[in-house]
């Protein structure tokens, strides 16, 4: 038997695709000073555009200037017109990469120098550096596979790693216990980010290394 539900929300969640605006009235007893920007916290620290990733240490603040129909990403010296909120991530990444490139070439002017000092404090720079590290040669063995999107590998260092998603798909050509080599990029915690140019490889035993060392021309 249905019963009136206790403790229900006053405002039910709505998943409608914004067909018609629904107004809500808030009564204030004095005018809001339109010259003072209203500040909002963007609930996002990770920005990804076209695979480029930037992580901020804190959630960025957005200041809305209602008299100028603009908003600003606070501390980034980036202003956008109303309605271009979808460009926030792109503009943050662009600004950072531009300043980063100039900083590497020591070509920042005075104003950019000040901006870079401010912006570089807001970005997880260590993370940025790791994620831009180049591919490196790896070898290892496929330990097990569960479907095409999850597997476990043992790297040549002896470390084992569970891999999921697109990277796991790259290993789908191998059977468990088969050895491989390829070019890989690792991220934070030395976890695989991307692997390419995978091909089967003969098993490298310890004696192979010793034999190679003995046979190395300068050691003969």
């Amino acid at each position, binding site marked *: *038997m*249905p*019963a*009136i*539900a*206790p403790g*229900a929300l*006053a405002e*039910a*969640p*709505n*998943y*409608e*695709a*914004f*067909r*018609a*605006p*629904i*107004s809500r009235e*808030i*009564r*204030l*007893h*004095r005018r*809001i000073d339109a010259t003072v920007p*209203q*500040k*909002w*916290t*963007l*609930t*996002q*620290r*990770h*920005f*990804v*555009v*076209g*695979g480029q*990733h930037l*992580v901020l240490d804190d959630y960025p*603040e*957005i200041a809305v200037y209602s008299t100028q129909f603009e908003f600003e990403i606070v501390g980034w010296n980036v202003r956008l017109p109303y309605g271009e*909120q*979808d460009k*926030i*991530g792109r503009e943050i990444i662009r600004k950072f990469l531009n300043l980063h490139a100039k900083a590497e070439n020591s070509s920042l002017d005075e104003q950019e120098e000040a901006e870079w000092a401010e912006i570089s404090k807001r970005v997880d720079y260590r993370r940025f550096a790791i994620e831009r590290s180049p591919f490196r040669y790896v070898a290892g063995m496929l330990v097990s596979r569960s479907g095409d*999107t999850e597997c476990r590998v043992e790297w040549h260092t002896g470390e084992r790693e569970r891999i*999921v*998603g697109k990277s796991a798909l790259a290993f789908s050509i191998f059977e468990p216990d088969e050895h491989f080599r390829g070019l890989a990029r690792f991220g934070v915690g030395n976890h695989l980010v991307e692997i390419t140019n995978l091909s089967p490889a003969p098993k490298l035993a310890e004696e192979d290394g010793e034999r190679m060392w003995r046979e190395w021309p300068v050691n003969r």
Partner: protein
Amino acid sequence: MPDVLPIARTRYRKPPVIERALVIHLGAPIVEEKFQFKADEWRTALVRDFPKLQTVTEWTLHVIEKEGMPVLDAAGQTMTLRQTFWQVTPEDKRRQGIQLWQDKISFNLLGELGNPRQFEELENLTSTWLPRWAVDFEVSACSGVTLQYVNLLSKETLPTFFENNQLKIGEAIRLFGGVPVQRNLLLPPFDFQVNVRVDDVEPKAHVSAHCLSVEAPADQGPIMHLRFTATTNLGQPPRSIPLENVKNEGRLTHNLIIEAFQAYFTDAAKATFEPYASDSPGSTS
């Protein structure tokens, strides 16, 4: 695999339904980093099937009282960007789409007057794209579903209930029929919300009817959205059910909304929605 529930049928050619949305909830949000990476990949992966991308901003206002005065408090104000993907008509009207949140995904089917779309279309949209979302966002379980139908109450959908730009709502919606005044004197706003717990189904559900006015020119008379929402996303800690159950829970919530629809509208209103003959093979959901 659970037994598949039958879909309850309604009997109208022109119900006032203008939008249907099926939401699949997660017990815990996807980690932000993974979510943003996958959402970025979807922007290119889905572009052929959903050519119109739209970022929607959700603003949360926080008003506090300071020294007896209301103040907008920056500390509690947030904005959230949500990625949405749409198929559009040649006239650039949204037909159907997908909306992404960190803790849920919604499949939306948009109709219009005279074209309410069908639940089966929503089911097809979901069965095509839910598995893709599950693989790409690495999701294998959910905590329940919410189904929402939006009914438009206006001069266009209830023309026979308008007189001198006034809606005789007591003759169209049962709830108002019992108001102890002369029915045709009821004046807008007609906003209300009723929440009902449904314990005699498995899983348990809540059904709500939420009626609220939308902005309209004065000469149009009152325009409202009557939203029926049924959810199985209940309980704390959140349930964990395999995604295969989404189909059945979607059908269960659809059947509950059909019951609500039948219960809220008066027979006179339902007669104007052009009922099919009860045994007609054309009767649909």
